[in-house]
Each structure stands twice: as structure tokens, then as C-alpha cells.
């Protein structure tokens, strides 16, 4: 059933709030009072609730079933985390109220920092990045700040990025003023070490660093990682690790031990803060000894007199005096996604050091189980075990006339959200399946049964798949039309 837009059902005279009547006093707006209404439609509360509840039912969600989007890590969102985030002591405090009145909030930040540092083995963490890509930006900006300090910022501009990387990696490097050089992938889905070596031969005085995802976007652990780190360090560069897949190794491997200089952590992936249809994220970024002092504002310190936590908010020479801090600047107003910090800390304390290790292990076990169950029907992209996600190519669809997208849409009719498709780019017609640790074996079996059935239909060339889905709230949507004639907002029909 179609749900109309608020613009079709609301009116500018309707409102779902009751406010006291204004007193009607003279304004002090300096003649800038609005002359025209906004035109915004209002709904009464019953209408508004119904509108959004009905719309919600048009969504698939992790609470409804397996959500196997590879590299997105859709896991169960514990409701305790939501409850804690809504405690007035966290939800109803202002970032600029006197710091003595928010010591509990700063303790939350301190405790989360402590966990993140210990889990990664890193000495410092910048908490303010607002999402994973923002954390990448923070890490690369810290490298840039270090290069400024070294007087090499104008010369060291080359950043190596594997071709299998998330698009955010090259985009971030460029946003931070670097130039991107691609590294080829090896046939086993990892960085081609020879290609890397070749690119680091000779003059490396232009090398700023490398951006590497590990486990990588093929769901594989970069087994040469230590050698790669050494190579980049020898070349005078820094090792940025994209921590998007940290959930596969948390509690089992510390990135510092691998030679990492900076790594962002997607709190929503590893520590289960809710995705909410595309955000908010949170991307705290851990930094090595070499980069620690460049962490951005605000910087948290402890007041030596009374042990209180204190945030240095802005570039203030007086405040920084006596420290060796050289903040790279500021990522955003205030100090990051506090609401995600409370959720992540709640999740972390619930799991503990033992539970987090189990999280990684179960995530990897689940992915390998899927790979094992499907390998005879579909085409695993690479040999051997995977980490937290199983990657298949479209080789098994050869000559069937069916494409990866059809498999995806076919899975919708099976009652599932599809896997990630056509990513990573290094695998043809890629299908990347990440079940996470919060799925039961029974659920995995049902999912594999469904995917197997769709794959078999596809192999047999079942034309019906090309029109799937049939059972979703909508049929296939025309994305080309949307891009060709963008309609990005509602407009009143002309009279």
C-alpha cells in the first residue's frame, strides 16, 4: 500500500504539538522577521505516528532477519545500549556546560578510550571523528601534520592504496591533499607484494604512506602485513589501517603489533551502535606513538589539582603550554558522537575481554560456515578460509544470462536482504556475505538454503529472476531515471 507524502496529507494549519500562546511582545529581530510562511505541512500526533509506523514496515531490518551486507557488519543492536544512551545524565547534558558538571560524561569517554587503546595496543585515540570516513580523514590528517612537522609535507604526497580498497580510502587521501597510487591485488585476494615492492623501489622520498584495510575487503587477512608495514616505514611513510573490519580480529590481534600508525574504528560495526538507515556513525581513530601528539581538538587532560577531567577545546596557547601536543586542528564542533560512545561502552562492558574475543571468533566461524555450505553451488572468489565475510564471484553464472544483481533481487523474494554486490571491484560480479556473530546456526542454514536455491535457479537460467523481486513492497526501481531527471524534493503543484 502506498503511503502518501506528508505534503499530501498535512496542512500548514495542522500541528501535532501544543505550545503556550506567545505573549505578542515586540520583536528584536532587526526587521528580519520572516515575511512568508515556510509552507511546511503539519500532522496531528495520531497521523504522524501512523505515517512513520506504516513507512517503517516498508523497511527490512536486522530485527527482522539476517542482513548479510558484506563490509557493512549488520549485527544485533542490544536494547540496553539504547536505554543507557537515553539516561537523562547522558542525553540531557550540553557539550559546553561547565566541565565540573559533566565529569561522568568525560569518564565515559575516558573509559571508552582506555578500551580502544588496549584492544588495539595503541597509545592514543582521537574521539571526535563522526564516522568511519571521518576517522580516515583524521588519521590521514595526522600523518599530514607529522609531515609538516618533518618539513616534508610538500614532498611526501604519494599514498599507496590497494585497488580492492573502499572508495573512501582514495577519496580521503585526496581530500587530505595527497596523490593516490594504486597497488595491484594478488591472485589470492591480497596486496600484491611484488607490486608494492616495485612501487617502493628507488626514490621513496615522495612516499607519505599506505592505506590498507585489514582484514581486507575480500574478507582476507593480509598475511604480509608486517612486511608491508616495515616496507612503508623504511620508505619514510606511515601505515594507515582502515579498521572497518576490526570486528573480525578484536581480542585476537592488536593492530599496533602489526605496525599500524593510525586506524579508525567504526563503532557501529565492531561495537554494535545502530546504523539507523545510514547513520549516525562514529569513527574514533587510534594513533601510534609517532602520531599521538597530532590528535585533533578537543584534547582531554586530567586536572592536576583535583583529578577532574578537562577538555582543551580550542587552539589556546595557554592551555597547551607545557605539553608536547600539536593538534592537527579540529574535526567538528564539540567532541564527537557521545551518544555512540555510551552505546559502544555499554556493549563493550557487556561483552568484556572474553566476550569480544568470542565476537570475532563467532563472526569468522559463521562466515566460514556460509562459505563451506555454498562453495559447491557458487564460486568462492579465493581459496582457503575467509575471515568475517565470504566472497563469491559470478563465475558460476557464466552463460546463464543471469547476473549478480538478479541473485540479489531473488534473495529479496526469499525474505532476505541481499548481500553486498559488485564490491570489491577486484572480483567480477562480486557477492560479499557477512553474517556477523549474532546469527544462529539455524538462521545460517535457512539463509544458505535460500541462497542455494536462488543460485541453482540462476544457473539453470531461470528468466524470472531477471524481474525479481516480486514479493517486496516495490518492484525493481529505475535508478537511471532517478539520476537522469533528478527529483530531489517535493514541490507544490502549480495552480
Amino acid at each position: 500500500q502506498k503511503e502518501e507524502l506528508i505534503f499530501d496529507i498535512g496542512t500548514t494549519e495542522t500541528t501535532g504539538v501544543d505550545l503556550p500562546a506567545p505573549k505578542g511582545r515586540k520583536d528584536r529581530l532587526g526587521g528580519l522577521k520572516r515575511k512568508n510562511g515556510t509552507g511546511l505541512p503539519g500532522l496531528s500526533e495520531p497521523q504522524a505516528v501512523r505515517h512513520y509506523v506504516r513507512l517503517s514496515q516498508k523497511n527490512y531490518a536486522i530485527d527482522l532477519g539476517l542482513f548479510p551486507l558484506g563490509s557493512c557488519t549488520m549485527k544485533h543492536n542490544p536494547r540496553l545500549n539504547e536505554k543507557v544512551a537515553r539516561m537523562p545524565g547522558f542525553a540531557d547534558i550540553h557539550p559546553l556546560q561547565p566541565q565540573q558538571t559533566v565529569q561522568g560524561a568525560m569518564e565515559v569517554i575516558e573509559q571508552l578510550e582506555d578500551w580502544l587503546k588496549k584492544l588495539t595496543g595503541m597509545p592514543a585515540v582521537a574521539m571526535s571523528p563522526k564516522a568511519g570516513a571521518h576517522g580516515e580523514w583524521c588519521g590521514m590528517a595526522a600523518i599530514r601534520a607529522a609531515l609538516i612537522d618533518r618539513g616534508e609535507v610538500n614532498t611526501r604526497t604519494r599514498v599507496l592504496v590497494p585497488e580492492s580498497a573502499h572508495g573512501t580510502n582514495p577519496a580521503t587521501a585526496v581530500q587530505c591533499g595527497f596523490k593516490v597510487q594504486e597497488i595491484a591485488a594478488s591472485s589470492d585476494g591480497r596486496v600484491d607484494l611484488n607490486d608494492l615492492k616495485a612501487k617502493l623501489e628507488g626514490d621513496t622520498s615522495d612516499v607519505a604512506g599506505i592505506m590498507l584495510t585489514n582484514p581486507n575487503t575480500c574478507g582476507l587477512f593480509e598475511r604480509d602485513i608486517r612486511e608491508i608495514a616495515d616496507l612503508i616505514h623504511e620508505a619514510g611513510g606511515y601505515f594507515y589501517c582502515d579498521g572497518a573490519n576490526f570486528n573480525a580480529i578484536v581480542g585476537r590481534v592488536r593492530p599496533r603489533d602489526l605496525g599500524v600508525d593510525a586506524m579508525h574504528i567504526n563503532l557501529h560495526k565492531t561495537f554494535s551502535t545502530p546504523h539507523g538507515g545510514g547513520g549516525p556513525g562514529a569513527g574514533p581513530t587510534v594513533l601510534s606513538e609517532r602520531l599521538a601528539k597530532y590528535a585533533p581538538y578537543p584534547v582531554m587532560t586530567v586536572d592536576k589539582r583535583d583529578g577532574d577531567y578537562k577538555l582543551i577545546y580550542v587552539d589556546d596557547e595557554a592551555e597547551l603550554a607545557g605539553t608536547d601536543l600539536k593538534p592537527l586542528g579540529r574535526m567538528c564542533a564539540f567532541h564527537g558522537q557521545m551518544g555512540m560512545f555510551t552505546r559502544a561502552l555499554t556493549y563493550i562492558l557487556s561483552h568484556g575481554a572474553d566476550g569480544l574475543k568470542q565476537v570475532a571468533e563467532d563472526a569468522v566461524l559463521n562466515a566460514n560456515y556460509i562459505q563451506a555450505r555454498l562453495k559447491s553451488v557458487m564460486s568462492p572468489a579465493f581459496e582457503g578460509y575467509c575471515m568475517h565475510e565470504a566472497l563469491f564471484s559470478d563465475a558460476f553464472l557464466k552463460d546463464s544470462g543471469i547476473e549478480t544483481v538478479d541473485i540479489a533481487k531473488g534473495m529479496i523474494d526469499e525474505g532476505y536482504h541481499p548481500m553486498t554486490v559488485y564490491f570489491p571491484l577486484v572480483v567480477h560480479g562480486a557477492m560479499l556475505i557477512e553474517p556477523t556473530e549474532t546469527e544462529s546456526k539455524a538462521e545460517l542454514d535457512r539463509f544458505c538454503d535460500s541462497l542455494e536455491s536462488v543460485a541453482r535457479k540462476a544457473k539453470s537460467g531461470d528468466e524470472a529472476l531477471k524481474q525479481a523481486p516480486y514479493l517486496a513492497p516495490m518492484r525493481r526501481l529505475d535508478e537511471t531515471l532517478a539520476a537522469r531527471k533528478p527529483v530531489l524534493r517535493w514541490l507544490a503543484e502549480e495552480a
Partner: protein
Amino acid sequence: MRYLPLTPDDRAQMLETIGAKSVDDFYQDVPEFARLTGPIEDLPMHQGELAVERHMSALAAKNRTASEGPFFVGCGAYKHHVPASVDHIIQRSEFLTTYTPYQPEIAQGTLQTVFEFQSQVAMLTGMEVANASMYDGSTAASEAALMACRATRRKKVIVSGGVHAHYAETIRTACETQGIEVVILPPAFDDEKALIGYAEDDTACLIAQSPNVFGTVTDLTPIAEAAHAKKALLVSVFTEVVSLGLITPPGEMGADIVVGEGQSIGNPLGFGGPYVGLLACRQKLVRQMPGRVCGQTIDADGKGGFVLTLSTREQHIRRDKATSNICTNAGLCALAFTAHMTLLGDKGLTQLATLNHEAACDLADALEAIDGVTLKTETFFNEISFETPMEAGALLAALDEKGVIGGVRASRLFPRADLDNVVIAAATECNTAEGIAAYAQALKEVLA
């Protein structure tokens, strides 16, 4: 572990199916020296809900909430009342626990709300188009600066002294890595127009804020004209979106890109985040716009629906040539914004904005009447600045002892001696007449 469904039996069976001895097999690519054997030391083990809830409650109890007494802190985040139904909506499993709507056939709930959001933001700001939201107001501002540079192919950005210090720093940090020159004018209570003199032929944009960080409301029209005369853009910033319910929208004053913080509508103070950045612009700039955008289309049966669109601007397609590296929006916060705005409608928003302005007028009246207080903001929406003979930090601490959280000392944002005695104070519909009287009384006593 309550969040882990696999039983020991399951694990054993699955390993058998896989043909692995133990999960250690899966980690064989990890260099041996880096393999951890047991749980990481010096960290506690798992705890039940009761224990964790107690721990977090104890931390929460150490904070003083904005509802506990008279509270006048603003400067980019505002204490407003959010209807309970908004939280119900964003806690719907189907909204809370879904992902970016990559598969539009089963994500129309998210997509339609994003379309409603974009439309609301465009209407509010008086602009032609808006995106699906940014991280927050400050990053929206830095993205707007970068966008202006791309659109004009120029590399110089002028930021007024009325722009929130954090916003200005965020803009500078983001721009400088790309070799863009950022000129930040000295803080000024009511001089957005100082920007006019800085519009040159190499200027990508002027960035003005209204209401500015001190509270002053400014007519942006002459600034826009000055910018346009040099083929530069005007980027208009706001930190209090409720102001748009009462003030002429930037779109009507000639702004080319409008950015701001949407927290006030639908979202709690939350100690600074997550918030929701609003970004709207002229139609002609749409392909330079960063971030996610939702558009209308039709499905195979010809029925109308929504999809993410214009993704050729984005990093997952364009990689190193993308307009930005952004890959999320502020999904849930934007939904909260949209739901709250839908409850308000034009009528409710206008009323809310009027109540805010009247509260600030009452506050200004009450404080101005006190000996030693000088109001520094002639025009304002819901926030004012005032100066006293006392250092602002000490003043606020003294007010705090009397139970009043009186605002932000300007020197916290701008560490400059000439602002040492300045307080920035906001009033909203949550501030009662009694609270305002209590503020005045406390201030009178402190200054006596």
C-alpha cells in the same frame, strides 16, 4: 553471552562442516608473533545487564542535566522539548536496525523519510535542493566551503568573525589540507558585514552566520551581493535551526549554500552528538553537493518510489575523484528531525520560534536592567551576549553555586582578552519566567 546465539554444539558441528579443527585455523594468516592466546590482559570480563546498567547509571548520575534547574547554555546546541512520539518512531526496529538503503525495494521506509527530510530542509532554508544530511552543522560548513571552492575553482575562503569558533576551525582544518587559504576574521558581536570588504576575484566564498555565535541576527543580502559581484558564493551558516521559523530564510537573502545544525529539532543535547547537519543549495550546484541524496523514480510496475541517486559524485563510484569522502549521513537523527518537523508544521514551528524569541527578549530585559551588565547584541533570536565587570568564568561559577547554569563564557571559544568578561546565554521554550527571574536575581547578587 546473551548476544551470541551459537551454542558449543553448534560451533563443533560447524567446524566439522567446514573441515577445520578450531577457529584458530581461520587466523593462520596472522603473523605468529601477533596472535593473542587469551583475552587481552588488564581488561574486565563480560558482565550481565544489571551490572552494566548499574555502572553506566552511576556515571550518568555524575552529570547535571539541563532539566535540573535554570539552564541557559547554547552556542551551537540548544535545549528544546522533543515530543515523546519522535523517540518512539526512531526506535522502531525497522528504522533503528536497518542500513543505508542500498536495496530500495525493501528500504522505502528510509528512503521516503529522507525525501521528506530533503524537502523540509529546502523549504525551511528557502533553497532549491538539500541533501540527505551531514554529520553535523560544523562539518556541513566545512563541506560547503570545499564545495564552493570546487564550484568556483578558487582556493580562498573568508569566514566572518561571527561564525562559531568550532565551525571556523573545522573549516580551516578541512580546507588547509587541500591547500585552500582560510581567512578567519576576528570575533565580532554584530559585524557579519565586515565580510563585504573581503570579497575579491580569487574568493571562492564568504561564510557568514546568522544568528551568529554571539546571537546577532544579520541581513545577509548585502553580503550576498558583494560576493556575487566578484562571482564568489555566499555560504550561510546557522547553529539554531529554530530561528528559521521566525527569520527571513537565507535563500531569500541571496545565499548560495546554506548549512547548519539541525539538532534543535528532534534531537537531544547529548553532550555534543550525534547531531544532524543540514545542507541546502541552489539547483545549479547540485552536482557539486557532497553526501547522500535521495530521488524519486518509478518501479517496474510504474509505481512511484524512491532511490539513492546522483551517486556518481560519491566516493564508492568516483573514488579519488569524488566530491567528498563521506559515506554516511546522520540517518536516525535526520529521521528524528523529520518526524519532529512533521509534528510541528509551519504553525507549530512559527509558534515555537516565537516562544524562543520572546524568552530571549525577556532574558535580555531582565539582565540589561542589572547594574554593570552591558548587552552586546542589539538584535537576536534566542541567544544574547552580555559583558560585566567580572571575568566570565568566575561569574558563571558563582551563578552555578546559586543553581543557575548561566551560559558559555565567550573566551571558551575565543581565547582573547577582550572577550574575557563576555557571557553568551540562550533561552528557549524550556526556560520559564521563574527561571529567567532566578537568573537575574542570581546575577544581581553576584555582581553586587
